[in-house]
């Protein structure tokens, strides 16, 4: 191994390890349980779990059909649709939040009609779910679309010739074949939703118990008097994310 490769690799690895060490170093271990059992922290924790699971469910229900169409149907403009639907992966989340506000806010393009029928998204739990779905669904679509592309279509053709209907082929042949990717995509989507900050605070605001998810709580408390809570809850997010990444990666690479 050339020396510069070794040095580069060590620097790169340290770049990721040192910030984590900073969190661990500053963590108020003795009072961490007290912090975690505070009402505000629990509200943020529960809200984060609820909204991220809801966002993942929505992403699966609508993202899997989108992925199927993108993988299997050749139509004009498909690459444009792909670019637009994957855009939130690279877009600054705050920009996504502004776009959501202009589209779904009370005076927004679509939001003004939603308002008339009594659907309010900003400052409500549903708004936090929408922001998380917007940012996280591309992870599911990308993973599942790749799986649809790589499956052997002869199995589906065989099922069709044996008399299965299209929907039964989809449910009983196609979906089981992509199951690992579907689960991996859903887990990645969930992890991204759990960590969503920029789009949520811009679009849904910061309202305790409604839109103040764990990342918002961390950011707000870091600047307040109770910065210990921010550090403890940051560590909680780090541990959850690590467990998810390691277990999904292990599970995927196991053959």
């Amino acid at each position, binding site marked *: 191994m050339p020396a510069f490769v070794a040095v580069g690799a060590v620097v790169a690895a340290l770049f990721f390890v040192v910030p984590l060490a900073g969190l661990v170093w500053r963590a108020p271990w003795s009072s961490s349980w007290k912090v975690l059992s505070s009402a505000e922290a629990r509200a943020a924790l529960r809200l984060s779990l609820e909204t991220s699971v809801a966002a993942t469910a929505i992403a699966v229900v609508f993202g899997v059909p989108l992925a199927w169409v993108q993988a299997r149907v050749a139509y004009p403009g498909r690459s444009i649709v792909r670019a637009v639907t994957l855009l939130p992966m*690279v877009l600054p989340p705050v920009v996504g939040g502004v776009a959501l506000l202009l589209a779904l806010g009370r005076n927004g393009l679509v939001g003004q009609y939603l308002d008339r029928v009594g659907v309010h998204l900003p400052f409500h739990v549903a708004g936090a779910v929408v922001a998380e779905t917007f940012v996280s669904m591309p992870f599911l679509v990308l*993973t599942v679309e790749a799986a649809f592309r790589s499956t052997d279509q002869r199995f589906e053709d065989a099922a069709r010739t044996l008399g299965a209907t299209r929907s039964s082929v989809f449910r009983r042949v196609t979906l089981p074949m992509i199951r*690992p990717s579907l689960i991996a995509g859903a887990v990645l989507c969930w992890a991204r939703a759990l960590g969503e900050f920029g789009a949520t605070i811009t679009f*849904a605001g910061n309202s305790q118990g409604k839109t103040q998810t764990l990342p918002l709580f961390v950011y707000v408390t870091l600047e*307040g008097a109770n910065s210990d809570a921010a550090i403890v809850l940051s560590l909680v997010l780090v541990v959850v994310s690590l467990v998810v990444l390691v277990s999904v990666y292990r599970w995927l690479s196991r053959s």
Partner: protein
Amino acid sequence: MNRVSRRHAASVLVCFALVAAACGSSSKSSGSTPSTTSTPAKLSGSLDVFAAASLTEAFNDEKTALASSEPALSLTYNFAGSQALVTQIKSGAPADVFASADQKNMQKLIDAGFVEAPKTFARNKLEIAVAPGNPKHITGLADLEKSGVILVLEDPSVPAGNYARQAFTKAGLPAPKPSSNELDVKSTLAKLTSGDADAVVVYVTDVKAAGSKVEGVEIPDSQNVIATYPIAAIKASKHLTAAEAFVDEVVSGSGQQVLQARGFLAPN
């Protein structure tokens, strides 16, 4: 085929790791290139000024004013909620000057030994802001808690949010229950101008700066809270002389003119 599918999914994992890091922060700053001329004048070199979000317009005016009178000075601003700036400075952000919207946040830096003796340079008052035409007929703080009025305030950790809650107490009203607790006055005002909030409580100067996009509803002095703005040089500044000169300029020089033109009250 499961294997192929898994391999694809694994490559997406890498993608995820890359993209997940792309979560942005939202601090606003306006920069300028450092000046190359060096003069013996006190107000020269480049200064990083961390200032409360409510000072955005006035301090940008000050920059314009100083650009002609002090060409050797180069100012870079970082505007955010005072509480956010305190966190940044305590974490070692390279600030030369800190201008806070309240004494409380300045006190945090005094206690931590980060700043020289602060000087008061302006005062401000709260005002209710509503959409042009006042469609919800807001006449005072008491109307903000009526059902059907979407109220957005700053978080209690933000100076303006703290002052606003004090005003409700002075008016004999119960603690407000805003739809959202924003992280600085500018993002609070943005929730009103986007149409998602019916009313916000910000500073008189913010209402003035927003122009015709919002309408102000005065809060009587008996209920209002006077915000006091302190400014101080940061002890660790590499340009301490220039930082002190800038503080003086804001406290007693050209700064007073631009601040008062923007609606700030004189320091005393």
